[in-house]
């Protein structure tokens, strides 16, 4: 086993070193420069131009909250937000330690004493908000996918069911999430009554709103993927008299995976946008609430802090899409297909 790992490590390192050596020695200078330029230089230059433009435009505009922040101010605020998070964690740690010490002392005096452990109730930091948003959007998205993929498959297989549900899908698809939000909020507070709730209501509201918007692109794309299966493959399934389940798992699902994932990616993108809006409107914890709070707060740093949130939202959206892409590559049978 150890030996195996050693050889593996050796191979990996060798591969890497080999590549480096080949890069340095074998490839002609001009080509090297071209490769480097294409993969790194061009995006970097473009980003630099963007920063310069941003800085120069921002300095021209004055708002009631002061100057529109340039890249430097935004960077400073990003650091500050991180520092605030660290400081809050230190406070939390201190609180827990104090509590433990106090409890230990109590127990030492009287072993029968009832000790209380209270959770720390400090303010939520920027990183907490990010985390809340991410798991909320994933919850909503996963629920939506679990509902939408089977519906898409069934309506792709049966024209009758497609005709039945297509008008509903077309009608609900263009509805703004914010129109759903009040209904979801009212329904959740009416239905979800529990003395010891497992989830926060705000979390459920946001997640369900995301679900309602994530359903449609997945349903539509899965349906299209299923209906466009190669007719030869459908005939193979008929000649073999494959059962319904075998047909779905052996033929329908694999051949509709590309379209299905196209739908899932659109859904997750929409879900992420919807979530931020829902959090702003409903004051549910998350990045949207952070933006709104900063806007209401109106300090001279607010705009820069909101800009940090804008970049964070964009970056997380991008990462979510990349994750879906690698998932797609993992489950896709056609490894040579170019997936963007």
């Amino acid at each position, binding site marked *: 086993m150890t030996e195996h790992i050693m050889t593996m490590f050796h191979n990996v390192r060798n591969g890497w070193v080999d590549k480096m050596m080949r890069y340095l020695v074998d490839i002609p200078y001009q080509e090297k420069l071209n490769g480097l330029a294409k993969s790194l230089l061009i995006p970097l230059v473009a980003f630099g131009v963007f920063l310069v433009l941003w800085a120069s435009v921002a300095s021209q505009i004055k708002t009631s909250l002061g100057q529109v922040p340039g890249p430097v101010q935004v960077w400073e605020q990003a650091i500050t937000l991180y520092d605030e998070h660290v400081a809050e964690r230190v406070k939390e740690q201190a609180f827990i330690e104090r509590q433990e010490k106090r409890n230990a002392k109590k127990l030492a005096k009287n072993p029968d004493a009832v000790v209380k452990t209270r959770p720390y109730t400090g303010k939520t930091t920027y990183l907490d908000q990010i985390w809340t948003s991410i798991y909320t959007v994933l919850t909503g998205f996963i629920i939506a996918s679990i509902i939408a993929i089977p519906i898409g498959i069934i309506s792709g297989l049966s024209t009758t069911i497609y005709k039945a549900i297509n008008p509903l899908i077309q009608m609900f698809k263009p509805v703004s999430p914010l129109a759903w939000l009040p209904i979801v909020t009212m329904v959740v507070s009416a239905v979800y009554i529990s003395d010891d709730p497992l989830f926060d209501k705000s979390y459920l509201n946001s997640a369900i709103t995301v679900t309602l918007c994530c359903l449609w692109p997945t349903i539509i794309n899965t349906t299209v993927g299923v209906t466009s299966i*190669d007719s*030869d*493959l459908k*005939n*193979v399934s*008929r*000649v*073999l*008299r*494959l059962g319904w389940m*075998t047909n779905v798992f*052996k*033929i329908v699902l*694999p*051949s509709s995976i590309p379209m299905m994932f196209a739908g899932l990616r659109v859904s997750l993108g929409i879900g992420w946008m919807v979530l931020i809006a829902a959090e702003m409107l409903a004051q549910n914890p998350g990045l949207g609430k952070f933006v709104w709070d900063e806007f209401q707060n109106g300090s001279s740093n607010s705009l820069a802090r909101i800009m940090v949130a804008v970049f964070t939202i964009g970056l997380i959206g991008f990462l979510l899409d990349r994750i879906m892409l690698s998932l797609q590559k993992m489950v896709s*049978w*056609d490894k*040579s297909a170019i997936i963007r």
Partner: protein
Amino acid sequence: MLKEHLLLSKVTIDFPTPSGPFRALDDVNLSIAEGEFVSLIGHSGCGKSTVLNIVAGLHQATSGGVILDGKEVNDPGPERSVVFQNHSLLPWLTAYENVELAVKQVFKNTKSKAEMDEWIRHNLELVHMEHAMDKRPSEISGGMKQRVGIARALAMEPKVLLMDEPFGALDALTRAHMQESLMEIQNELRNTVIMITHDVDEAVLLSDRIVMMTNGPAATIGEILPIELERPRDRLTLADDPTYNHYRAEVLTFLHERHSRSAA
């Protein structure tokens, strides 16, 4: 005469179009004996594939019908397995798994796991594909894909093997090679085969009878030519054989003089 095996009786089919029904086939009658190799030849668009699809059960005849061993054919089934023109292997399964899908479906109650495995391997060996069992369709050539397609069809132990221009998409050399393989397999298994082709040499070389179809619309059987050549047949010896060339000439005359395509 061998006992009657497959009967096409007064098969007529109309396809609905916006301007009323279109009659593709009109009164097709054909009786095929067990173990017989029959080719359907005709110009494209004459309804050869429609005949095959009706026998396969993929299309329903408007009137008339197909009877296999005394039972009417109403839907597709593995006892009438099809080799499609474009191999139609499942691209996400390996050659082995493609054949396995068919074998599991047909023999799930009659063969044990080990027997199934052996049967899959046997059929892949029959088409000389044992070396590429674990390759996916995208990793093998067109001829190899078609071989796996044939292995899959044979593995269902069909009563009738239906082949829809099985070698149409292959280059001439590969095609010749595949024809040799098919003759070899046929020599061993004696399947009942209906093959669609537009290649006169292929039809004469492989068939016991050639069914020549008139042009559509309302296509039907124009002429049936029995090929009485000794088996095993050898392509090179036959090339100089007067009987062989006579058969060839007869099919060509039918296709190009009596039923040449006006639109072509």
